[in-house]
């Protein structure tokens, strides 16, 4: 199934396995969950949530300081 992912200013369609979780997606990008907040269809969600066909995922980095 396909989901849309926004990360580092890019938007791309990503083919993922049926029943894949956000954590699976983060692993594919090599992102540690401690470093981001994830929105799915505009809502903040825990990384254990499963994704569904057509979901819009925004990966929001949280580090800002110096």
């Amino acid at each position, binding site marked *: 199934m396909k989901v849309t992912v926004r990360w580092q200013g890019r938007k791309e369609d990503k083919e993922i396995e049926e029943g894949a979780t956000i954590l699976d997606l983060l692993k594919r990008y090599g992102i540690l969950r401690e470093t981001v907040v994830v929105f799915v269809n505009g809502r903040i*969600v*825990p990384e254990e949530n499963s994704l569904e066909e057509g979901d819009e995922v925004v990966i929001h980095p949280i580090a800002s300081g*110096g």
Partner: protein
Amino acid sequence: MSSIRLPAEGEKRCSFCGRMAVYHRRYTGDFLCDRCLCKSVEKRFLRAIREYRLVEPGERIAVAVSGGKDSVTCLHLIKRFAERKRCEVVAITVDEGISGYREAGVEVAKENARSLDVELFVVSFRDSFGLTLDEILRQASEKGKSLGPCTYCGVLRRSLLNRTAKEVEADKLATAHNLDDEVQAIMLNYIRSDIYRLYRLGPILKPMKGFVPRIKPMREIPEKEIAIYALLKGFKVYWGKCPYRKGIHVEVEDFLNRLEENHPNSKFMILRMYEKIRPYLEQAVGEFEMKFCKICGEPSPSEVCKKCELLRELQG
């Protein structure tokens, strides 16, 4: 914040109220919804203030605000707390002079201060030290200095915050260090074998002549929880990343995040261990005599404070 939509299949529920979860608090094994996460953050903030007696009724508290998620959240929480305790809140923003980065943060700090009706004092490296951080780092590089940007920035910023907090007659200076910041600082001071700075990492420093006591009411709240809190509350936050953010700080941060990923609760355990050894650190540095810098008059453990030493090296 007020959604009552129930979780669908594949969506986690809050361990406390059954609403849709926004966060998995892995170090306790709980899922939290928006309301329960906000309550938890606020509770920890208030508990730190109570437990360590960070603020006394009627005090004037200066909050260091960069415009980032941590300091903006800290300002909002302190302001709310202060209203109940007859405390007065002011904010201090340090403009280090980082082109293309700091300007936006300063504007966000101003917007938050305005919306909360808090008086804001903006001070800059350029006005205070004659140079912006960009210029300092350019000069340091030309002179072949090996110190990292965070060293110059950190030393100068702490000095300027303390000086400004004194000028605005604050009783306390609140900084927004979160759990991640605190644990990184513990590890960095271990790596540098700096027992004095390691000791000075507590939630509040004993009153010392020349220093406005620094308080850290958010040091037991993980960075990610503060980020979610700020997003849920809709605070105006500057999410930009400092262009100088590199070097050992980032390596330690990355190491700790990997550790936490594979072994949840590691960050809290490092903090707890630090708290266990802190009384011994106090004994070790107890005899320490604070002097006053012969150049600028600010308190310093040596004849010349670190800030003046760094600036003098650049001029020499």
